[in-house]
């Protein structure tokens, strides 16, 4: 299971800092919400339910965008594998 790297710092303004390699990122408000939910150990399905309940978006688009976002988090080494 992929979870968000514990050491990552994220501020409400969407500033993300990875202390392991010193890289920083910015996320938009919805990205901030997703990362916050991940930090609470919410799974992809739950996050999707949350987005569908709060935003005007089709399930297919939402799933695709969420997968894409997770892919980018992984690409930027912000996710870690956990058994």
């Amino acid at each position, binding site marked *: 299971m992929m979870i968000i790297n514990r050491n990552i710092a994220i501020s409400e303004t969407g500033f*993300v800092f990875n202390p392991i390699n010193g*890289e*920083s*990122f*910015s*996320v*938009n*408000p*919805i*990205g901030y*919400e*997703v990362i916050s939910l991940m930090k609470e150990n919410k799974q992809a399905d739950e996050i999707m339910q949350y*987005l569908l*309940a*709060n*935003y*005007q*978006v089709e399930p297919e*688009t*939402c799933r*695709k*965008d*969420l997968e*894409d*976002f997770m*892919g*980018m*988090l992984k*690409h*930027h080494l*912000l996710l870690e594998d956990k058994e």
Partner: protein
Amino acid sequence: MEKQRYERPVIKKLETGMPNKFGLRSEYVPITHIEGNSVKELLSTYGSPLFVISERTLRQTMEKARTAFTTRYPKVQFAWSYKTNYLNAVCSVFHQEGSWAEVVSGFEYDKAVALGVDPKKIIFNGPDKSQEDLKKSIGNDSLIHIDHLDEFYTIVNISDKLKKKPRVAIRVNMDTGVYPMWDRFGFNYENGQAWDAISKIMHSKKMELVGLHCHIGTFMLAPSAYAIAAGKLADLAHAIQQKFNHEIKYIDLGGGFASRNTLKGAYLPGIDSSPSFDDFAEAVTTALINGPFKTEKLPLLILETGRALVDEAGFLLGTVISNKRSSTGRRITILDAGVNILFTSFWYDHKITPAQPFTHYTEETIVYGPLCMNIDVIRENASLPLLNKGDHVVIHHVGAYNMTQWMQFITLRPQVIMIDMNDKPHIIRDKETLGNINAVEHIPEHVKTLPR
């Protein structure tokens, strides 16, 4: 509780330092309306994609150009360059504004005549005028701009047959310090070809040499090049006066003024870097006024300005079909408008603006059209706000060359509307249909039957 407007989650790595090749962000506000009409409604009424022409912008741009020249020079005439955009409605607006017609083929010539342009106010340019074209236009007393000697001899022949003295000019090419030099059209100034052609015309006594013409290039960013061109044509006119005691009535400097688009690879957007009509007018008129002419003998100045008059009045509205990622992780957005209808995306980084509200988050995006072809790239790299499937975009400054060079390829060409001075839309070209395409095709009888 009403749900919030959705925006996809994005993460962007922060890098210190320079703007990258995706350029500076330029889209800060959505364009939800064009001349008072909602983009969303226009697309739902007329279909997507859709070309929109603003009549107001056409007339205002014409007015700016006219004012720039007429405040600096006593005799100015614009001639609308048909190839730039020959939709009948667009040509008609320019003719209402007082423009003559500048055409480069029999087809364009007939189009201008059919629109009711006085044939005496049609300038016939180009290297490919057929015998028939020449007979017709000489019969109509149009202005024939001679491109090469073969054409000159054909005209001599026709004038004998018709017992008419055609009104002609020669196209002159020259070094104006701008490279590549357009030297395949007309007669060269520096090597004496132009003077040779002038002498042949004057000695033939078969035609009246009324003007001198040049078109030094297109999307010219240097007003000084026009000063050089005007100077060289003025010198030729003076030499003709001296040697043949013959007065040249007009100097036609062609087209080529840059529009406010951004050329590919340019660092600054064209909106900030292209010279204004005033800059071009100042260069041209100063050169003419300082030339060898007496005040009462200043020649008429003709301008065949194309793109700079029409680019800004044209918009292409489109819809996002899909978002995806390339194999290297770059964002890809696919629009329903491709290079088949937006030929100028080969030259320009067209500005693309979302037509609905967006946040300040952007992604570096490659914008593709819908064709199943690798060449179908609308923008190689654009820093764009986040667009959802089904969102609409406005592509700016598409009025020049697209509605003439578009191709019927894979898809049909879309509708074109013109929004009038009272913000009312009018269809000026119908969406192409399968019927239009099939109407000009024929299937030989023996290949008609298909196996069952």
